[in-house]
């Protein structure tokens, strides 16, 4: 075997003789002369890491690690709760492979980045459309951080400091909002639907922020919540699952002020939770308070249309400690996936995805209802208010999109373990919210056969055969 000790690494072109030449041009004798500013006692402390491995070895190891995971692409899964297994059309992967998109930087030189900018403008256009909102920014880190920043923005806009979050929202949303608000002189508080609809909204509330479909999959009465917020002089902030907007009314139709969402369901693989993209939309009049990057249309010196980052004076690289957010590197490439997804699905495709998810979820719910020992949670369960308090014209609290909670006859964690044994990825254990509760999610990716397999597996459990 020839030894490659002296050859450079595949990622580093300089050969030993080139290095020597370059050091001579620099005017130093050896490399060490370049790092004399580093305190001597700490200089050159060696890295206790494995040796360089060849591509074949690395690929082999990584394939082995990937194979240790139970891949939701090759078995039925009923997990949702913020990350959803939706169909991703082939166009998304094909465009995502373009090195020109993958390996470019943030488009600070617009003339050399029209590809990123124009596709980002498409993203903003599609997101604004889906949300029915006037403007969207170019993307946030993920859904929960978008929601957290929406709360902070509501505080800036309203000059009030209480961010009230409806208690039907995912606790992850609370937690992230809390971490973002911790030292910002604002309070994060939970509020019940009951209180909001009864008008019990404190008059220093910056916003009523809610999730719909909520954590348990149910559609909130967006109109009523928004009206109540506005009545109290607060903003209405809605966090949503964008796929649902393929069939349900958009936040814009209800006069919501700021609407956020997790972009992952729109063409992004599950990838163990990231990288995703946060969707952030608002009314036009708030644009100078938006966090994150925004792409605008303009023209060049020859009058031709072009695109550029705009409203940058909100951002940290210009406004520093007075910026609307510290966000810098964001999620442009994931936004591109969303843009290609939306262009591919079009209005009819997005609607069909929503409808398929809806019908299949209801098929499962109906089947579970028929199982002895299992109980789809439909009404007057915590934390939903009782039906009587829902305003007329609003949705029944039982309207759900594609997720719903089920009361299990045994501990949900045991249910999931038994399902795993049958090659099924079960639901989310929500027994901390709903006693014996499991949250099940169904999308267009779950075939009827998969659903029937789940029902069959659950029926075995329901019969008390195992515990």
């Amino acid at each position, binding site marked *: 075997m020839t030894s490659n000790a002296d050859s450079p690494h595949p990622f580093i072109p300089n050969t030993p003789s080139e290095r020597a030449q370059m050091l001579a041009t620099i005017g130093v004798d050896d490399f060490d002369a370049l790092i004399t500013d580093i305190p001597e006692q700490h200089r050159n402390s060696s890295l206790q890491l494995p040796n360089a491995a060849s591509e074949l070895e690395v690929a082999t190891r990584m394939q082995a690690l990937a194979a*240790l995971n139970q891949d939701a692409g090759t078995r039925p899964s009923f997990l949702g709760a*913020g990350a959803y297994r939706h169909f991703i059309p082939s166009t998304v992967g094909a465009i995502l492979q373009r090195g020109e998109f993958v390996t470019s930087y943030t488009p600070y030189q617009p003339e050399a980045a029209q590809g990123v900018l124009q596709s980002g403008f498409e993203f903003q*256009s599609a997101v604004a459309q889906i949300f029915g909102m006037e403007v969207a920014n170019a993307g946030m880190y993920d859904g929960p951080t978008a929601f957290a920043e929406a709360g902070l923005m509501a505080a800036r806009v309203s000059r009030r400091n209480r961010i009230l979050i409806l208690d039907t929202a995912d606790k992850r949303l609370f937690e992230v909002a809390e971490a973002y608000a911790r030292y910002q002189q604002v309070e994060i508080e939970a509020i019940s639907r009951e209180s909001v609809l009864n008008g019990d909204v404190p008059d220093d509330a910056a916003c009523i922020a809610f999730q719909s479909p909520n954590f348990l999959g149910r559609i909130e009465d967006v109109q009523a919540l928004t009206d109540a917020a506005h009545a109290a002089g607060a903003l209405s902030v809605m966090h949503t699952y964008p796929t649902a907007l393929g069939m349900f009314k958009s936040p814009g139709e209800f006069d919501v002020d700021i609407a956020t969402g997790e972009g992952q369901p729109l063409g992004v693989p599950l990838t163990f939770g990231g990288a995703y993209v946060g969707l952030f939309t608002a009314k036009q009049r708030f644009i100078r308070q938006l966090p994150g990057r925004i792409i605008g249309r303009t023209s060049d010196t020859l009058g031709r249309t072009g695109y550029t980052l705009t409203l940058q004076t909100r951002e940290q690289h210009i406004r520093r400690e007075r910026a609307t957010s510290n966000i810098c590197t964001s999620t442009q490439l994931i936004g591109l996936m969303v843009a290609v997804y939306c262009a591919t699905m079009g209005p009819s495709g997005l609607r069909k995805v929503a409808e398929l998810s809806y019908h299949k979820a209801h*098929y499962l719910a109906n089947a579970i209802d028929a199982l002895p020992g299992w109980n789809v949670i439909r009404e007057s369960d915590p934390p939903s208010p009782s039906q009587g308090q829902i305003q007329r014209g609003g949705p029944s609290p039982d309207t759900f999109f594609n997720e719903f909670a089920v009361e299990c006859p045994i501990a949900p964690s045991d249910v999931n373990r038994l399902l795993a044994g049958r090659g099924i990825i079960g639901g989310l254990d929500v027994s901390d919210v709903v006693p014996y509760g499991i949250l099940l999610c169904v999308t267009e990716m779950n075939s009827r056969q998969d659903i029937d397999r789940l029902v069959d597996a659950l029926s075995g459990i329901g019969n008390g055969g195992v515990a």
Partner: protein
Amino acid sequence: MSEGVVPNASVADMHDRRLLMDRSVSGRRAIEMPAADVPLAEMPNDDLLRDADDLQLPEMSQLDVIRYFTLLSRLNFSIDTNFYPLGSCTMKYNPKLNDQVASLGGFANIHPLQTDDSVQGALEVMFELQEWLGEATALPGVGLAPLAGAQGEYAGLLIARAALEMRGESHRKVALIPDSAHGTNPASAAMAGMDVVTIKTDEFGNVDVEDLRAKADENACVFMLTIPSTLGLFEPNIIEINNIIHDAGGLVYADGANLNALLGLVKLGDLGVDICHSNLHKTFSTPHGGGGPGAGPVMVTEELASFLPEPVVVKSDGDVPSPARRERARVRAQQYHLTRPDNSIGKINGFHGSFSILVRAYTYMQSLGGDGLRAVSENALINANYIQARLRDRFDLAVDRLCMHETVLSGKRQADRGVPALSIAKRLLDYGIHAPTMYFPLIVPEALMVEPTETESKETLDRFVAVMQAIDDEIDSDPDSVNHAPHTLPNTRLDEATAARRPVLRWQAETD
């Protein structure tokens, strides 16, 4: 001339720039979805349902979707097509293996809420990456959750505040930040409820130690040091500086965005740094994607590890038999778990961080190993100093010292001849070279911050030098042309003022 016909246009200009909605034709489709295979459920209340016409998304054929985005991609500079010496950004080669690994089904298709025992491979990746980043920085507490550098900073500052609060020093709210710092530092400090106090940089590009000493008082929470600094310089007084901060009762936060200069040469923890972040999308070569996603893990000392954001992956001692294992003999013993550290600052994002980016960084580190990572930094330094040495007769240096991984030139002499740094940067684009970072750090007039990275060859650097010299010549022969550059790209200079004054942020039906 007929509509849509542009003769003699350059290839890049040839296609039209209309947006998708301008190309949309009602009834076209780029995809077919399956019919329902279940009985249809009753639809919800009409009040809730969206009008079919309300959703105005593009209606395109599949070919036209592909063609549109393919053409857009070709309007862009990128590492795969251009030298990209963008200072502070570490635009280096993104190995294709890493992308291929990240797209393996076993990584791409796992749900973040699966049980730990069903994602042991993913957790092993995260665990080892934690270990390796800890080793590279000598800061053994590693949190992978932050989704970019700025979020890493924010997490680090929350940790600092939480640690000081636990010490009973919640009054400490001052962030000392050098004037050369990146904008995210003060922005993150502000988000963490801190008051920003600026520290001067001296004529050698170092932290003004006396200024620091004067300002590091009993209110000091953190000192945020970018190392090497945004001037591309290693702070020679770093030990003294860190002692000053520690003596004042504060913590030292290092912005590790420039870690590409330090791998195997020095470890931040050894220098007294308490907290740092690293941009995996820079040093660890995960692609920048036109503006993310990134990942900005936060590294802390042993003492601060309990404050890390959720989640952290731990390895169970020995071979704890899990229930799953009992059930299914083929499953490996569960070894790795997602946990919430005892005093965690909590969740700063939805799930576990930018996993697809973490996988890439881990793959990258394996490909290089310890020695390879050192070679990365060595060659990053050599390349930057080589450019500096070759251009110093034509361009002023921000500070006349050997540099680390990037060199900050000043275009003062050129500006005096009527061509600002901006125009030099734009003119480079005409030569197929991406512009350096301009006007940053803010303290350098006409700054051009050049970071070649280790993945560029000597020929590429030599060509860059030749182009810079050619532009310098053009400033004498034809300054106007330089001032109107670029001339060869899909657009000439864009009117950013109007864009901000009359913002158009989405497609609109009106023609213009």
